[in-house]
């Protein structure tokens, strides 16, 4: 089965060349090896008998290279064609992502073709795979031989499922790449159907968002808009620089902090201290801006409080100020009272002494 390794950015697929003995499976692999660019192929390994018949399998790793960011590799195997090697044939077939059935076009080989095809169907079934469900391409090989059946006859006899077929003379390299290409395309299309859609649905952002927490948060806000996961924005938000690319067209520096808050619903609390020391001037401006933006996105989450935070931030500095003012008033009043009392006392004293003389 296809192995997808998102950490290593790798996709590995297993393709098996199947067919009767001497139909040209190993020749197909040899031609792929001969003609594939050096930097795309590994070693061709054969476990063969003295008589050069495949004993276990031939193996060729083929590297397709980077496909949409994933290093895509094919492992090509052939099976031994001889009837008595069925147990090893079955082992090699295990976990195959696609099968190329190499049929011998010669009239006298038709029974062998049919037997091998039936054997393929049966072996797949034993692995719980219906032959109709696995990518399959039939190659009509040895088209240059005398007494070959017409393609129509071959189609009628061998292609019960209406799968793609390719005519070939593998020994001359004809039809080898088109066969492999047809199957590879089917295998990758299958993969794309299953995992390609996932990226569309906004599931992918989960990981990039984690990465954004580490540093590059720039893409996070963009995804937050399209993605369904409300978890994304909080992660993307921690970086205060994130929003800057968003309002690129508008007034650059000031709008920057503004969207940061709306998108960063939850983290607003921890961030509250940062805006304060950071720019002394922006605080007043962000507060009016975030108001419209978060209103749209925030309702579900805790964005509202975060939107309010910048507005709430100024009051604390205000509080001490009134305290200082009222304290001053009290002092003034006390001074006035004391002055009045002193004046009264002085007057009384003067009145008292005058009356005595």
């Amino acid at each position, binding site marked *: 089965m296809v192995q997808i390794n*998102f950490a290593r950015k790798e996709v590995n697929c297993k393709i098996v060349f199947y067919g009767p003995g001497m139909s040209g499976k190993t020749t197909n692999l040899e031609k792929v090896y001969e003609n594939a660019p050096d930097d795309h192929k590994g070693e061709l390994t054969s476990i063969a008998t003295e008589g050069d018949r495949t004993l276990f399998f031939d193996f060729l790793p083929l590297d397709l290279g980077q496909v949409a960011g994933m290093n895509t590799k094919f492992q090509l195997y052939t099976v031994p064609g001889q009837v008595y090697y069925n147990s090893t044939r079955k082992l090699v077939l295990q*976990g195959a992502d696609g099968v190329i059935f190499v049929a011998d076009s010669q009239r006298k080989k038709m029974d062998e073709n049919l037997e091998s095809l039936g054997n393929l169907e049966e072996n797949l079934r034993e692995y719980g795979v219906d032959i109709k469900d696995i990518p399959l391409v039939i190659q009509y090989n040895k088209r240059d031989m005398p007494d070959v059946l017409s393609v129509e006859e071959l189609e009628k006899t061998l292609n019960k499922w209406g799968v793609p077929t390719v005519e070939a003379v593998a020994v001359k390299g004809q039809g080898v790449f088109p066969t492999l290409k047809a199957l590879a395309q089917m295998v990758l299309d299958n993969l794309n159907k299953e995992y390609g859609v996932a990226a569309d649905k906004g599931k992918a952002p989960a990981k990039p968002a984690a990465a954004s927490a580490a540093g590059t948060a720039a893409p996070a806000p963009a995804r937050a808009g399209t993605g369904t996961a409300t978890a994304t924005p909080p992660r993307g938000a921690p970086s205060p620089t994130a929003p800057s690319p968003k309002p690129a067209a508008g007034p650059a520096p000031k709008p920057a902090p503004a969207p940061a808050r709306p998108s960063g619903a939850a983290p607003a609390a921890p961030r509250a201290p940062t805006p304060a020391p950071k720019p002394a001037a922006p605080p007043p401006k962000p507060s009016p801006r975030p108001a419209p933006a978060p209103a749209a996105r925030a309702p579900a989450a805790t964005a509202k409080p975060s939107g309010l935070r910048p507005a709430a931030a100024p009051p604390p500095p205000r509080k001490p100020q009134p305290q200082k003012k009222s304290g001053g008033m009290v002092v003034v009043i006390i001074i006035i009272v004391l002055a009045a009392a002193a004046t009264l006392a002085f007057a009384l004293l003067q009145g008292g002494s005058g009356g005595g003389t």
Partner: protein
Amino acid sequence: MRDEQKLREQRLVFYRDDMEKIGRHLTEFLKLAGAKCAILVDKEGHMVDKRGESGDFDLDTISALVAGSFAATKEMARILGEEQFTVLFHQGQKESIQLTLVGDRTLLTVIFDESTTLGVVRLYADEVSKKLAVLFEKIKVRGASGAPPEEGISQEFGGAAKTRLDELFGK
């Protein structure tokens, strides 16, 4: 739908978190066992991860041969009435390989030389296999659950693949 479910169960999908855990286990194992290299291979012959010094040998080929070798001995085991052999050992003059089954579909391949002993390798391989088996079981269950993938392949994968195939095999 049933086929899709089956496919998901069979398919191995590894995410960053999985690979970090696997890597930690393998690194720790190498330190304890004194082995040169540890390679995790699935039964289809695809390499999952590798730690240590692998020299210049082709890892894809080693992985395919390891899986093939294991599959072949499974048949031997079956003939003897065993389900499968869980440990295989190939001794060379300088370098040896030990294969240990991890869970039900992954193989831990350990390459080591005379600087350590088979006993030590086997002891720690057995230990780490159990830890890895737990991890792989979680990965399998996650795959079977039909939970949406944590990460996806880019939407452009299909188109890009076609272009690459054209480049490699001609139009």
